[in-house]
């Protein structure tokens, strides 16, 4: 097994024709890795992603080959995957207004060229989920919103239609499942590629706290920043320390680590309805 790349949050290995994705416990904010890991974060996100891949496999094939046939030391946090030729569009579906989508709306009244009604505020539910793709540059450039017409120009009309339809379909299938357990999937990013036999295949991860915004439905209140089941707690703490957002990042105190880990566990347990005990799925 050869290490191909060590990212901020995930390591990628090649094993023959397959790829092994290993999710770490690392956490980063403002594009800087923090020195303190969040115990079990990699396992929690991997298991949640696998749960969604399994649950939604009828919608579109995915890249997962096995979560068992992986090196023992990475059990629980690794997935053996097909190697895909990736499509260069970040497929984002938004059901609610937040983050860069909110900023784009405030500037233009639209996101990725999709016009939205006037008067929406942070956290507003959109009239219907919208497909708001971004670029996926090869280098270090930040992703930019791209209109659907530009996606069609870039990759072709038919593939663009498929990406949009499948992304919306996945969101439409997942959102009610999460809602059943009191979780709002505000938005989510999906990535697709083509398998060696040319089949459109869902890659990366699916509906995790790293690829989606999860909000507790009972605390949702448009017009303010939402309580979030992700690293928002770490981000808020880091901001509060007065850190200048440049490396080296400060060490995360134990109570912040504990609270962040609890949020990852809570979202896993609420969505899957399984119990997480000491890093093991029950």
């Amino acid at each position, binding site marked *: 097994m050869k290490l191909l790349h060590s990212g901020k*949050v995930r390591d990628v290995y090649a094993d023959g024709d397959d790829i092994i994705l290993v999710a770490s416990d690392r956490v980063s904010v403002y594009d800087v890795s923090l020195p303190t890991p969040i115990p079990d974060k990699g396992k929690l996100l991997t298991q949640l992603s696998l749960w969604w891949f399994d649950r939604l496999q009828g919608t579109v094939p995915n890249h997962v080959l096995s979560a068992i046939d992986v090196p023992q030391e990475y059990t629980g946090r690794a997935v053996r995957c097909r190697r895909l030729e990736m499509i*260069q569009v970040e497929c984002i579906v938004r059901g609610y207004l937040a983050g860069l989508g909110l900023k784009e709306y405030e500037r233009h009244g639209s996101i990725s060229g999709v016009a939205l009604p006037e008067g929406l505020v942070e956290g507003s539910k959109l009239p219907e989920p919208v497909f708001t793709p971004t*670029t996926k540059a*090869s280098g270090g450039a930040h*992703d930019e919103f791209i209109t659907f*017409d530009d996606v069609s120009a870039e990759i072709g009309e038919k593939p663009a239609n498929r990406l949009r339809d499948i992304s919306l379909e996945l969101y439409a299938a997942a959102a009610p499942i999460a809602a059943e357990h009191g979780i709002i999937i505000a938005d989510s990013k999906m990535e697709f590629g*083509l398998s060696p036999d040319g089949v459109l295949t869902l890659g990366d991860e699916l509906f995790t706290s790293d690829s989606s915004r999860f909000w507790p439905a009972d605390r949702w209140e448009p017009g303010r920043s939402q309580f979030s089941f992700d*690293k928002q707690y770490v981000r808020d703490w880091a901001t509060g320390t007065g850190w200048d957002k440049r490396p080296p990042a400060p060490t995360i105190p134990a109570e912040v680590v504990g609270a962040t880990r609890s949020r990852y566990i809570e979202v896993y347990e609420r969505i899957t309805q399984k119990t997480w005990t000491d890093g093991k799925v029950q």
Partner: protein
Amino acid sequence: MTDATGQSYDPYILVEDVVKLLRSHGLSPDSSPGHLAEAAAGAGKLLRALDIAVAQHPDIALRRSGTLMWGESQDV
């Protein structure tokens, strides 16, 4: 999205190539943020018109993988 002839190219790399080419001709293309979406669309269209499929090299895709999380892109 490799085509039947197996030829493919990354539209974002093509944009970078064109910027370099234009600079070598003494021009000053504006490649600042805000231009990428339209440029990538144009590059993809050009490639497909030339029967070259648009694709991201797997190694480049893997370098991106796990590098930037969705929430993180919202930090920016």
